[in-house]
């Protein structure tokens, strides 16, 4: 009989919530998968009602990119900025890291403000037609996710400023940043559907 425990590693193993070995990292990917599915079904609803629709779509003509375009660029850029913050946090630069998280947070707030301005400029109310129902529900779902993401960024800002993270202890930061990346990427699909696809389908 062989002793199989002889094969089990006796090397030092990382202890506790560490990098991408942390359960939370896997759990956040699970959350991203289920939230991604949610947006998939939201857009399924959009295209289903679009292809069964007979009137003009969107009802007020082709959408303007004047506000949504800059908003999209800011949100996408913020993904790069949080990555940059993570880089500094992992080098142990607490103050610079916190400052850049604050910048990410500010960019998210600007995106929300631009979206609210965009909402205020719509000529239709929430209910009434399938398009208006879809528009406010889907962009509203996304905005709710941005707001949750901003709360996550706020927590990361506080924890970074308190000096909780460095090159070895940073899994919490990376897990929070992963959620922010998701919020940014999923907007591309929402944006393409509402602001770009009408140009292709007209």
């Amino acid at each position, binding site marked *: 009989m062989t002793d*199989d*425990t002889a094969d089990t590693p006796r090397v030092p193993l990382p202890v506790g919530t560490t990098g991408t070995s942390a359960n939370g990292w896997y759990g956040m990917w699970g959350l991203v998968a289920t939230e991604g599915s949610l947006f998939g079904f939201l857009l399924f609803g959009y295209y289903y009602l679009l292809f069964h629709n007979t009137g003009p779509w969107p009802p007020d003509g082709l959408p303007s990119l004047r506000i949504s375009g800059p908003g999209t660029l800011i949100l996408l850029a913020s993904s790069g900025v949080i990555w940059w913050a993570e880089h500094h946090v992992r080098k142990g630069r607490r103050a610079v890291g916190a400052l850049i998280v604050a910048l990410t947070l500010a960019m998210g707030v600007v995106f929300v403000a631009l979206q609210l301005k965009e909402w205020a400029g719509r000529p239709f109310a929430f209910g009434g037609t399938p398009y208006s129902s879809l528009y406010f529900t889907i962009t509203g779902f996304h905005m709710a996710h941005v707001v949750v993401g901003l709360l996550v960024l706020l927590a990361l800002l506080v924890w970074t400023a308190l000096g909780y993270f460095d090159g070895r202890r940073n899994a919490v930061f990376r897990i929070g940043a992963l959620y922010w990346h998701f919020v940014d990427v999923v907007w591309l699909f929402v944006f393409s559907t509402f602001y770009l696809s009408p140009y292709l389908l007209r």
Partner: protein
Amino acid sequence: MTEQRRVAHIVHDNAALADHLHALWERPHTLVGWLSSTDHKDIGRRYLVTAFAFLLLGGLEALALRLQLAKPDSTLLPPEAYDQMFTMHGVSMIFLYAQPILSGFANFLWPLVLGARDMAFPRLNALSYWIFLCAGIFIYSSFLIGAAPNDGWFNYVPYAAREYNPGPNMDFMSLGIIFLGISTTIGAINFVVTWMRHRAPGMSINRLPIIVWGTLTASAANIVVIPAVSLAFFLLWLDRQFNTSFFAVEAGGQPLLWQHLFWIFGHPWVYALVLPAIGLSADAIPVLARRPLVGYTPVALATVSTMAIGFGVWVHHMFATGLPGLSLSFFSGASILIAIPSAVTVFALIATIFSGKPVINTAFLFFAAFIILFVIGGVSGFMTAAIPVDWQLTDTYFVVAHIHYVLIGINVFPVVGSLYFWLPKMTGRMLGERLGRWNFWLMFAGVNIAFLPMHLTGLWGMPRRIYTYHAGMGWSALNMITTVGAFIFAVGVLLLLVNIALSLKVGAKAGPNPWRAGTLEWATTSPPQPYNFVVIPTIASRHPLWEEDLNDTRHRSHVHRGYELSDHHETIGTTTVDAVPDIILKMPSPSLTPLLLALALSALFVGLLLHAWWVVGAAGAAILAVLAAWLWPQAHLGERLEESETAGAGS
């Protein structure tokens, strides 16, 4: 102080280590200790008890329905009460019993069969249970104001729209199912991550018990499809409360969008209700047949492929809605194709029994009956997968007979068999065999007397969901037989309860391994210790406890020698495919935050139901406060630097 890296020592288990672990892991025997438990065994037992309570409620509703239908032109239940009864029967069985009971078994068994100390997220596990309980109470509270959901378990619009259903009935349903969906999603993510990370060293994916494959595939599917049903109910709630136009034809909406979203969820869901139960059977049958499972790899692959094909069959619930022929053909083909993996599993189980030396006991009878009922339900499902047959049978009692053979046959029978098989592990006491035989034969006779003639009721044209029928329709005798069968079945379930109660009081002591089984859970005490294993086992084959008997490999697993992990709550993290150790994981302590979060969420949903926006706001604030406390990084879990390290840092 949490060190960055450590060599985990390999030791023999010993009494001193066991005592040390007991002090670390045992929860206080107080009310607060009970409410804050994050032990997967506590949570598993709570899931089982609560889901079983919903089974009994749903069963009482079924008996009321059967009394009403026993005779023609009956006036026992008025139409509105009948609608609420048949809806709540379906909702209880499908949402509040069938999936949660399997979560109960999986929660209890997974860490034990995987050789871990707990699930990947113990606090989320507790949260998932508390939300399930609160959501069930939320939906059932509708009875208090006489406004229970009343549109069948699939809630078709336009019946569910406010214009035709103005009461709060469907608002209870919409918000309640969204609430319950949070629990299911959290549980699903927990199972998937536990599978990826929490396995004993050496437990590579070809050594997993089939229950792990079943729960894993069901969980993976739930992660993807629960959002579909939550969204469908959210859009329905918006249509009802805020005059949006998703489903209302007069406002440009599409009723069929409801059916698509519901069944994109609904059909994978019915596989989620059976695959873990098939997994339980496929693990127990080989033990009772005294040999390893025939065709382990085909059965594991059949489980996964059933789920994969299960994503592409939802339109077979919509064959009669006027969809284009091409789409009907595709979904009909997929629905017929899915019989192949099911047949692979059935033949593997039959071959295991025939080539083994089966021990005929109550548990075995339930598992064997599961195979028979699975085949009958499978054949009637295969029939309705053919479009012309479906057009004749849709919305008749034939479909009702089919769904009951499937859900009772592939869910209830394996569940009761598993109670006879695994309850001794949970409680330390055996169930009575003599009473068990009466229990089995009454349930087996009851289900067949109730539902076999029901196929004929359907073929003779009786539509489902009608509250009564006229004497001249020719359905009277068949309906009376079904009612008699339902009551025989109910007596059988009652005997099960009596048997469990007697077992808890005077049942024979089980000992660690009453069935001389081969998998890891039987290496623990009955009931298992709070820490499960004194040392982390090392696994060398599919049947760690049968290696001396089978002697099919020169390698040996080790249950009494392995990693000593005893610095607070710890378990080993291993790689997903090969199960090579790569981290020492720190587990959280028991906590009240899951219960508090579930209560805050309950307040949120009550506020939404009543349009009490201040309640919604207050509940939202409470949720944020609890989450902040829950997620605040803890040094002892290695989530942040120690105070000492922080002080010296800075930039």
